[in-house]
């Protein structure tokens, strides 16, 4: 019987039905990870090719996190191949935690201004400017709508790490938002940082 060819067709059709609905999600993550459309498109294509190859052995979890995990691997492999500075692989989250204030006191009314001027482009740029792996975490959460568990599975880190990355990502976004809006004047950052570093380097904060 011609079952081989039709079986292959059937498999491709099932894969298409299952995976194609998530194309926008996959492309979105690719855009934020690769930061330009040409690289993002190549990554998406490679992702779907790999996914189809592994579709037979696929037993779950859900299709969306599975595709996003493959995409992430494709992107990271590409970073590694290029020897890019930005290679996000396994950044030690907590060691870098002192680069930015985790929490910055609101200067005027940042949340009010957040709501007032929802400037899509600004928010998109701020998200794009986040360092890995915080960018990945916040995109998976707020744009791809994954649960903490699913983000942990995609990023291959414990849920606790996901929580700390999201916390950091949001703190950085808030700080960047304040800076972008001029709400945070030149005095804001040094003030916050001097408090933090006072114990370690007394007197060095100007």
């Amino acid at each position, binding site marked *: 019987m011609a079952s081989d060819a039709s079986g292959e067709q059937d498999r*491709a059709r099932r894969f298409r039905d*299952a995976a194609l*609905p998530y194309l926008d999600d996959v492309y979105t993550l690719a855009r934020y990870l690769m930061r330009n459309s040409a690289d993002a498109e190549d990554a998406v*294509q490679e992702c779907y090719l790999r996914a*189809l190859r592994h579709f037979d052995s696929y037993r779950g979890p859900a299709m969306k996190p599975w595709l996003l995990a493959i995409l992430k691997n494709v992107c990271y492999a590409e970073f590694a191949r290029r020897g890019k500075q930005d290679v996000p692989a396994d950044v030690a989250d907590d060691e870098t935690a002192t680069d930015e204030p985790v929490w910055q006191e609101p200067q005027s009314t*940042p949340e*009010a201004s957040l709501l007032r001027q929802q400037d899509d482009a600004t928010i998109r740029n701020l998200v794009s400017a986040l360092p890995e792996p915080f960018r990945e975490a916040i995109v998976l959460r707020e744009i791809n709508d994954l*649960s903490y568990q699913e983000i942990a599975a995609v990023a291959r880190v414990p849920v606790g790490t996901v*929580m700390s990355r999201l916390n950091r990502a949001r703190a950085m976004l808030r700080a960047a938002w304040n800076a972008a809006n001029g709400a945070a004047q030149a005095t804001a950052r040094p003030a916050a940082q001097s408090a933090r570093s006072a114990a370690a380097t007394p007197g060095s904060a100007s």
Partner: protein
Amino acid sequence: MSVTANHADEMLLNALADGELDAGHVRDVEAHVAGCAACAEKFKAIRALRAAMANASLKEPAPAHLRSRIEALFPAAASEPAPASASLKGAVARWWRSFIGGFAVGGALSAAATAILVIGLFTANQDQQIADEVVSAHVRSLQAGHLMDVQTSDQHTVKPWFNGKLDVAPPVIDLTAQGFTLLGGRLDYIEGEPVASVIYQRRKHVINLFVAQRLGAARATVQAKTIQGYNVRHWTEQGLDFWAVSDLAGDELDEFVQKISADLRPPGAS
């Protein structure tokens, strides 16, 4: 992370805003936020940021040429997804051809008539076949405009809507308080038979609960499967067969099944 004795861990504030805390922690953190101005301020800022991101259109739709490129990767791309009846007819006809080995069965044989024959003949792989169809029906329902025939969160509107369309009255249960929002109902076809689909949602995950008489082998206990990444649960209760399908995580779908099942049982029954 900065945790002091007097303030809530910021990660917990994030988790509360994300709806990711269990009930016990929710109570604790909410109680703390209610009484602590500093944490309340932080929590407000987190929620404001979430709202701003939700309102901004941050998703990047795949450009049309990329979509064509991806679709071209699959040989089956030429055959458009068929409407329900046609694909069902195709599936039954394929099965039938393989069964009688070579006899051509024309389109003259209606899907319904074939299905009656098929029901008598199916044995072991019947459930698998139905499970595949149920998943296909779920995927189809997610395409724009296919999800609901009657759209309402009122169970007293959904239930009567099925009257006269089916020979069973599917139970329609309001689980909003338990985190599963009732979206509406739809008439679908599985194995050539009309079935009710009651549609629920948790977060952005759609759950199709298919209900019919004799849809697969009777199962007193819940059967779990994963097909193409969708979780599938099948069980029989009150003489009806239930199939729940969703891309929701397995344990959350189990929770859904338990809640439906508990509601179906008459009070006092064990």
